[in-house]
């Protein structure tokens, strides 16, 4: 949480610049965290297609990880993965 005072923020709750959604890290909404197991992954990219956010990180046409800044933990990637390469664990656990 930012710590600006009432004297520093724009009045009325206005946001004075556009295109700022990226600054809002929605990852902290997550209650369950997807864990990517690269050893089981066949790179079918179902998870990348189905992710409602853009939280599957792709490099050279391959899944290399998950963007936890924005992943809301919906679990769709785990659900669609034919190879059990994504596992959901509780946030705040000691994984």
């Amino acid at each position, binding site marked *: 949480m930012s710590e600006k005072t009432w004297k520093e923020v724009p009045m009325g709750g206005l*946001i004075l610049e556009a295109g700022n959604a990226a600054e809002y890290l929605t990852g902290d909404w997550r209650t369950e965290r997807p864990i990517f197991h690269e050893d089981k992954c066949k790179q079918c990219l179902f998870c990348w297609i189905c992710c409602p956010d853009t939280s599957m990180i792709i490099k050279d046409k391959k899944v290399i990880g998950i963007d936890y800044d924005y992943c809301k933990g919906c679990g769709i990637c785990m659900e669609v993965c034919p190879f059990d390469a994504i596992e959901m664990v509780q946030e705040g656990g000691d994984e």
Partner: protein
Amino acid sequence: MAKPMAISGNFAAAYSTKQINPHIVAAYPITPQTLMMEKFSEYVANGEVDTELICVESEHSAMSACIGAAAAGGRVITSTAANGLALMFEVVYIAASLRLPMTMCVMNRALSGPINIHCDHSDAMGVRDSGWIQVFNENAQEVYDTMFQACRIGEHKDIKLPVMVNFDGFITSHKVERVDVLDDDVVQDYIGKFEPMYPLLDVDNPLTYGPLDLFDYYFEHKRQQVDAMQKALPIIEKEMKAYGKVSGREYGIMESYHLDDADYVIICMSSTAGTTKFVVDRMRAQGKKVGLLKLRLFRPFPAKQIAEQLAGVKRIAVLDRSESFGAFGGPLFTEVRNALYDVNDKPGITGYVYGLGGRDISADQIEGVFNKLISAPDKMIGDIQYLGVRGD
């Protein structure tokens, strides 16, 4: 050249709106406001204004349209009364919270139920915590003049708040009086060109109105509104006074009538102040030291100024034209009594609730209030009485 007209309060509100020539007016008809908008729609139909008049399907929509238009960057005016204001309630708060200057006439009328179309202040008092500046006007001339002051006040860079121009339903809204009007160009010079601070239509500087604002920043934005209200008070005083240079009619946030040497004082708002002036004249002629403090500005509430005005007074009666059920006195009484808490040698104070649902208030009744103040025991306990109700 200024000229006199014989017009009602509603006509005065419509005529001043015509002279302001706002970008947008959005309103829904409700008694006793209807005649203002009927008159204004004539101006629109005749091409006498550039205003786009939006005829909406409810008061909630009227205020919503005004908020959209003000956020877009327009000068906006609307009006309503009683149940219409109640239907707006949710969005009335949003206009103030988004810091959108606009003007709303409220022809004060009793809230249902049982259903009643006549004057009291329960509608405006219902939104007294909404963050709007609230001015109460005694007569049609004050309504006319306050409409222009409202533009200057609400749009001031350090305020940016909506302004409610209150006047008594039917009593002031329908009664025909002499109103001295200004020339159009004098009005336009006084109110100036509207300069929106953050117009949505400024496509080169895109911004967001009304995002989600939770525990991290909502409190800070409310604190800003408190600050705006505090800063508004001296600016309003200055603007109302400065209006005298334009019109020859100088206003204050309150009006003292024979107050300087008065021992016994009535405090009230709107048209009842006119009746009270008549009674003060009558009793002064009999050598009685009575006076009136007419409050024009209710929000922000000028507590310090009221305490200064009432220093040295023996006894006060506060007349409230609305009830706050279960509270210790009407809204004006509780505010005034609160304002006097830190005064040395406090005056005795009593509260009257009167005139609910348009019940007439007569000069004799007001004289009765003064006489009770004069004959009261030294220590008054701040009791609340009901003036003009049968059975008390």
